[in-house]
């Protein structure tokens, strides 16, 4: 498995171990939306396959379909339940995270200091493995319940960034 194949599977698995409040969805059977902001790292141009779309194809969680949306910075980012912020948005990270504070959006990235800046989950590289860090304080702020066992396997970053005026 290549790195982004594993990361795509991880995104799907995060949904299994995170609880969103009912108000995070439009309706009872509304789909779970995974937003990808910036250039899509899950797209393998050589084989023309999107690992994320493959990972969620035909899957449902608690009777909700899972859909992937490719978003731009100007879009309504709070319309998705999980937002993957591509490393291409590294320079706009603060602004994006500021907009999403207190919203029921699980933010995920693979950018250095993502959790310290107010993100919730960040992929980190370990030799031969894909691991991740979690900022439980930011998850709490967005009223997201993270399974305690998920916290057990992650590196915990408990930092609450100051709100910029």
């Amino acid at each position: 498995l290549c790195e982004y194949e594993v990361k795509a599977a991880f995104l799907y698995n995060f949904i299994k171990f995170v609880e969103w409040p009912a108000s995070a969805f439009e309706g009872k059977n509304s789909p779970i939306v995974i937003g990808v902001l910036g250039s899509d790292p899950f797209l393998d141009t050589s084989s023309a396959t999107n690992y994320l779309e493959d990972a969620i194809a035909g899957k449902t969680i608690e009777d909700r379909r899972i859909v992937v949306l490719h978003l731009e910075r100007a879009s309504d980012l709070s319309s998705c339940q999980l937002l993957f912020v591509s490393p291409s948005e590294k320079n706009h990270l603060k602004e994006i995270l500021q907009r999403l504070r207190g919203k029921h959006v699980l933010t995920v990235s693979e950018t250095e200091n993502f959790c310290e800046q107010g993100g919730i989950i960040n992929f980190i590289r370990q030799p031969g493995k894909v691991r991740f860090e979690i900022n439980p304080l930011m998850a709490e702020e967005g009223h997201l319940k993270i399974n305690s066992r998920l916290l057990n396997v992650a590196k915990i970053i408990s930092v609450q960034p100051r709100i910029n005026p």
Partner: protein
Amino acid sequence: MKLLRDVPIKRKLTLIFLITTSTALILASAALFSYEYRSYRNALKDELLTLAQITGDNSSVALTFDNPEDAAEILGTLRAQPQIVSACIYNLHGVPLTNYFRLGSEHILPARPSAATDFVLEKDHLGYFAPILNKKTKEQIGTIYLRADLHVLRERVKLYAVIVSLVFYFRPDSGAGPDRKKNHGTKRLFDAGGKNERGRTGQFHGHFQPDVGANPNAGCVVTPIQRRTRTTCPGTHQRTSTASAAERIDFEFRR
């Protein structure tokens, strides 16, 4: 049955009681063993089922994110269950993620998990395969295997065997236990006359009367024989040899 023809009725009755009580005791013991074995095995099955459910649920994240360290930590909690000798968590492809072995136990685990939820009864162990499901999606993410020791059951059966043996040995009609010495004493009294119980019976039927005739004190050497003789023959010993079968039975009963 010819073998028992010359045995006194009291003896025969004792023998009947002995056979009856022994049979009852053996049947009751067999039923008890069987019940105990089944109930313990069922209790162990329930326990394995619960443990597999709890451990499987706890290890679902470790399994999902392929984290053997966390999975090993979870399996390590089985240390509190001394009957569990080994355990293993397999991923969806049947590859072991982590395993657990109780200290001093054999390092035996199935190379691949069973396809179905199943109990596997081995000689001294009971194994159990259970699927690990994700609570939200209800899809299988792996398999857990637990192997329990049946040593406790064996010990329990041994204990029951000892108890039943003791009951068998000390039962009232066995002539064993506290009354044994007394009986041996009685036997010694008879033996003092140079004859055992069977010998006396033989005397009664064939040789007793001529012996008494030759020596009137011969039967009086041993007190019980004397007493019996008096009861049976208040007047003369002549009648004894011609006693009817009914009289003989009556005599044996009184004896």
